[in-house]
């Protein structure tokens, strides 16, 4: 078949599929008075499905693998919830050297953690990764320029980074020199793990609630951590390039029954996964049924990746209430972390002179 015809045929099949999907869901999904799908609700994005999956493994998990992973997650929770022995010894000075919060001097115990217990379900199947494109489920390669840039910026934490709980002790030279060198989550500027996004990602740790409130002119996407409200202006133009926003500038439009949110005008402070401030995000919110919204995101930054990449997962509605995540107001740790580093330096200097 001629290439062009093949393309047309594929397009026809795709549009039929889309039409039938739309027809099927049209009657069953909640709608606002203006006829658009009602995306409102509170959603719990805690889940096991990671952003990427192992090279060569399929997107859809086998029942067996899904059950195994979910069983392991449950077992971790049960063991984490078990009472500690009252006569246990103190942790060794400086931690025991193993990875993770339990391995060093200790952070949160499992009471505080709600990392998710299930894989995300899309089209009725459990998924092994959020990434669907590239089809291998791996974030595309960075351009050589981007790799150099990231190497230069190694001391500037990015929005997708966690508080480095996995790093027992030290993060490299200068990591405690200035508040600006600490991760954005630790500074209470934004939640960690790109929880506010865009792209909005599960953080695999805690506080994964999100709320959508929808009006004809504006739609707000609230991220529990750190009370970050991204207002999507409907059918509006982007801000001029000189104005930048922490979560970018989001404008929305309806594409049939899908809310399409286009985001540009990022700062150079978040640099999601090493991207530049020219990152371009397209998010698509589709109401699947009364209890779930399909969230699809496409990440594009030619100065960073050799091609755009796309992920998707389901936002399941929850009846849980979302409480205030005041962070900065109680951030005693930030000052203490830096002060601790200064004290350690003074201590080390004293030891050095003492040894001479």
């Amino acid at each position, binding site marked *: 078949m001629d290439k062009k015809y093949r393309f047309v045929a594929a397009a026809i099949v795709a549009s039929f599929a889309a039409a039938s999907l739309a027809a099927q869901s049209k009657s069953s999904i909640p709608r*606002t*008075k*203006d006829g658009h799908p*009602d995306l*409102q609700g509170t959603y719990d994005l805690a889940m096991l499905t990671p952003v990427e999956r192992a090279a060569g493994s399929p997107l859809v998990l086998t029942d067996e693998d899904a059950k195994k992973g979910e069983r392991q997650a449950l077992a971790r929770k049960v063991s984490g919830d078990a009472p500690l022995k009252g006569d246990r010894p103190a942790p060794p000075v400086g931690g025991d050297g193993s990875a993770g919060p339990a391995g060093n001097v200790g952070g949160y115990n499992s009471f505080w953690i709600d990392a998710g217990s299930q894989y995300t379900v899309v089209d009725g199947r459990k998924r092994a990764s959020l990434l669907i494109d590239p089809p291998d489920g791996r974030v595309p390669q960075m351009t050589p320029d981007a790799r150099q840039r990231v190497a230069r910026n190694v001391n500037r934490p990015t929005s997708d980074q966690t508080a480095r709980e996995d790093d027992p002790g030290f993060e490299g030279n*200068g990591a*405690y*020199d*200035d*508040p*600006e060198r600490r991760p954005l989550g630790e*500074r*209470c*500027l934004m939640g960690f793990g790109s929880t506010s996004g865009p792209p909005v990602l599960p953080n695999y740790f805690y506080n994964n609630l999100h*709320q959508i*409130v*929808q*009006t004809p*002119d*504006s*739609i*707000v996407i*609230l991220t529990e951590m*750190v*009370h*970050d*409200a991204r*207002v999507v*202006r409907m059918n*509006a133009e982007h801000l001029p390039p000189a*104005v930048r*926003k*922490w979560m970018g500038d989001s404008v929305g439009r309806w594409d049939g029954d899908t809310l399409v949110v286009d985001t540009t005008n990022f700062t150079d402070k978040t640099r999601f996964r090493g991207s530049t401030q020219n990152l371009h995000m397209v998010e698509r919110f589709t109401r699947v049924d009364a209890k779930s919204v399909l969230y699809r995101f496409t990440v594009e930054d030619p100065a960073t990746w050799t091609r755009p990449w796309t992920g998707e997962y389901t936002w399941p509605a929850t009846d849980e*209430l*979302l*409480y*205030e995540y*005041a962070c*900065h*107001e109680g951030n005693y740790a*930030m*000052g203490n972390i*830096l*002060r601790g*580093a*200064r004290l350690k*330096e003074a201590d080390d200097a004293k030891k050095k002179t003492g040894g001479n």
Partner: protein
Amino acid sequence: MEKSVKGLMIAIVAAAGGAFAGAWATPMAGQAPAAYRAPRTADGKPDLNGIWQANNEANYDIEMHMARPALALRPGPYGPVAAAPVLALGAVGSVPPGVGIVEGGAIPYKPEALAKRKENLDKWLDRDPEVKCYLPGVPRANYMPQPFQILQSPSAVFFAYQYAGAVRNIYLKDPGPAPVDSWMGQSVGRWEGETFVIEASGFNDSTWFDRSGNFHSDQMKVVERWTRTGADVLSYEATITDPETFTRPWKISMPLYRRLEKNAQLMDFKCVEFVEELLYGAYRKKPLSRE
């Protein structure tokens, strides 16, 4: 000729006087004429959607006040002058006068609370939560000198404030008492005719009413009344009850105005970043000069 000039002058004086009297007779926000009927949302409720902002000096001092040289003062040889840490700001750091938003003029503090308010004012620079970019609380969030957006749908009412990115989700179904105190409190809303009534409670004792040390305890409850009184005016009233701090409930009221710019929108004011030097700068490996 002379007579007619005199007559004209009398007319002008009378008109000016009338305007003057009229200004005084203008109803306070909240006692707005009942005649105005607000546009409706899809479910027939008055439409509060939009970007709103107070146009007053309440964030400096909610009580009626004269202008003063600075927010932080010290005794000068002939009266108070700007305290050293804010001296360099000059007129930029001075306090504009305001007619106040407290009905009846003064806040009915208990004597010991009034003493604390004075102490707060004296130690303003150390104590005002706004200096540290803390969440503003209620009602202060509504008259910070920055816009906020109300998003109202049949199933949700949400307030997004530009200052510090503060937010309030207004429950339309009462979830019961707040399980824990918070900066922005827990808000439950209901419609009373043209007015959206919010009962807010579950506050901590760490927010203030203004930059003048006016404060409350964690016993505070705020009942807010939001009423559209014109195409671009939203009447705001709040009754504050806090038996630990005040001798009786008291009320504030003010009009809020729609931001009419074609491109009106909330922008970023993540001030946490702006106060890091203040709060943590001394712990830098190489601290910057503080002079």
